[in-house]
């Protein structure tokens, strides 16, 4: 039995169904990230776990106990809010101990708990300050301190990093990951940033329109997306999703990609997924991540199945650590990720290596994966 279990959870506001039957579970000490575009219901889902929103039907269990109708304070959870929600009229120490004060914890014990948390988060020197006297990163720390001090069964984070600038966000992301590793707490984390999801999670639930599109480990989500939406949403730069058709070369299937003003590319498939044979002569979506499309010298040595084809390079973007090259296949801009020192010029025809072991295929009609 998992530590956090959500069964068939539905949430309706009047006629509008915000959550359409969510089934998710998380083991003790796990890190679940709910990710999706805005309006997908991820924050609502978090609020229902916190008890700040009621649910229409379904069940939420933490450690075997059903918490559906419990008041937020009785659920043994702590929450970090997007705006940090620090009480502006109280000092940092007051903010951290407010929950304990409400539960009637004696002052001496409160002080001990404050000191312990302050040490973990290195905010000891800030305890007597008001939130308005803190920087963004410090406020973030205090907000986490307020959650940590409760030592709850479950931590809930609602887009905690979205108000920080880019550099600080990366620092705090590492800090949260370190905190999770050292304290071993169970965390549910909401974000719209797929990089945060990939880096932090032990389990990811990709959501859209109130439904979980895919639930799995970061590697599963990244390498084996179940549909077009997940493939497109996860990964940066995004996966290339190229309209293509299935043809034959010899007795194997091949993927045919249209090129501008030249004959199509035909990539022979040595170990095509079984479902693909039904699509002979039909259109499909061919998905290949930018790192699986590279210069032949930089291609993965141990990949079993690499096909090389000449491509017309339209734009070259040196990004420092990598060089991105944009070509046009199937009428769409396609991004290839090359080594930083790859010798490539825009406007030339250059051979690119397709790592076909990493390629995925989708049915354009249903947008689901062809396996």
């Amino acid at each position: 039995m998992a530590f956090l279990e959500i069964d068939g959870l539905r949430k309706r506001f009047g006629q509008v169904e915000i959550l359409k039957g969510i089934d998710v579970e998380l083991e003790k000490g796990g890190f679940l990230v709910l990710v999706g575009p805005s309006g997908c219901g991820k924050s609502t889902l978090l609020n229902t776990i916190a008890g700040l929103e009621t649910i229409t039907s379904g069940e939420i269990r933490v450690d075997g106990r059903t918490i559906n109708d419990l008041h937020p304070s009785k659920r043994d959870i702590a929450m970090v809010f997007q705006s940090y929600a620090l009480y502006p009229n109280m000092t940092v120490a007051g903010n951290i101990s407010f929950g304990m004060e409400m539960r009637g914890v004696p002052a001496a014990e409160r002080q001990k708990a404050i000191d312990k948390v302050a040490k973990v988060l290195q905010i000891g020197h800030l305890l007597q300050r008001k939130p308005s006297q803190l920087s963004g990163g410090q406020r973030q720390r205090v907000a986490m301190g307020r959650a940590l001090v409760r030592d709850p069964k479950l931590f809930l984070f609602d887009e905690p990093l979205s108000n920080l600038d880019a550099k600080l966000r990366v620092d705090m992301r590492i800090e949260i990951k370190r905190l999770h590793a050292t304290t071993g707490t169970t965390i549910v984390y909401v974000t719209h940033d797929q990089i945060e999801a990939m880096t932090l999670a032990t389990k990811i639930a990709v959501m859209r329109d109130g439904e979980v599109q895919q639930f799995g480990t970061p590697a599963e989500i990244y390498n084996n997306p179940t549909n077009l939406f997940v493939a497109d949403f996860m990964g940066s730069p995004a996966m290339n999703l190229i309209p293509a058709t299935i043809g034959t070369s010899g007795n194997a299937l091949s993927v045919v990609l249209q090129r501008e003003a030249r004959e199509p590319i035909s990539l022979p498939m040595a170990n095509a997924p079984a479902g693909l044979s039904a699509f002979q002569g039909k259109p499909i979506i061919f998905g290949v991540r930018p790192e699986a499309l590279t210069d032949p010298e930089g291609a993965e040595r141990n990949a079993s199945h690499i096909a090389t084809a000449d491509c017309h390079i339209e734009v070259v973007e040196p990004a420092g650590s990598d060089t991105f090259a944009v070509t046009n296949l199937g009428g769409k801009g396609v991004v290839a990720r090359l080594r930083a020192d790859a010798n490539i010029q825009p406007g030339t025809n250059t051979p690119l290596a397709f790592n076909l072991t990493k390629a995925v295929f989708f049915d354009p009609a249903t947008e689901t994966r062809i396996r």
Partner: protein
Amino acid sequence: MSAVTTPARQASGGVNVKVINRIVIYGLLALFALFYLMPLFVMLVTSFKTMDEIQNGNMLALPRAPTFDPWLKAWGETCVGLTCAGIKGYFWNSIKMVVPAVLISTMLGALNGYVLTKWRFRGATLVFGLMLFACFIPFQSVLLPMATILGSLGRFGVTLQNATGTSFGLGNPTVNLVFVHVVYGIGFTTLFFRNYYEAFPTELVKAAQVDGASFFQIFRRIMLPNSMPIFVVTVIYQFTNIWNDFLFASAYAGTGDAMPMTVALNNVVNTSTGVVEYNVNMAAAMIAALPTLLVYVLAGRYFVRGLMAGAVKG
């Protein structure tokens, strides 16, 4: 703007136009300020003059031998109707009425605003809309119905008095006025607080809920301490309105010992016996005006401070 379209004028003409604009603006402002302050000036200088000087001198002239006697007389000796013990009793009457009326209506407004924004219920917007009617009702139209209600309350007070030995203040004119001002103040105070709390971050309330704070704990520990600016605005507004009210005061406590300051002042000035003592009248009027001034001066500072705190919060 003209400097942008014709760069050549920027050096000479542009600057001159600017200066002339300033002179015109400040000149007009000074003129209106003078116009506005003139009556106050006349009141103030008259209240420090002797009757001789008033009758023989210029209204705008400064007092030749300033004297506090008119102020002392207004406070302690002048006749209000038939009793000649000054206005001090009526001054305290007003204080006794204003302080509870302001505090109760402000607190109720804060509570209403809190519920209407952070504990939304079905029809909250409609309830708020209906409460706004209280801001538009002309008070003359409620004089008689309210008199009937106060009369019933008074009779109930007598019944209570006979049954339990105390009327719980029902029927007392000061209590009646507090009641009337609270009822008619709630519309405005709710409007003020509701609009302030509308912009108040709801996440703070949610965080407090997760922390285990109850409905009233959130109100007292989170909402109220962060409401200083609107609290001060509401207090200034309510204090000024209730202190200056003449209509309700004269209708429900127009005679007798519970008469508020405004009615008493009217009686001082309208006295029909003897010489009209302008200096005493002016002093009495100044005394009547002082509390509202004081509230503004004292609370206005907190108001500005509150705004600054919000600005830094970011």
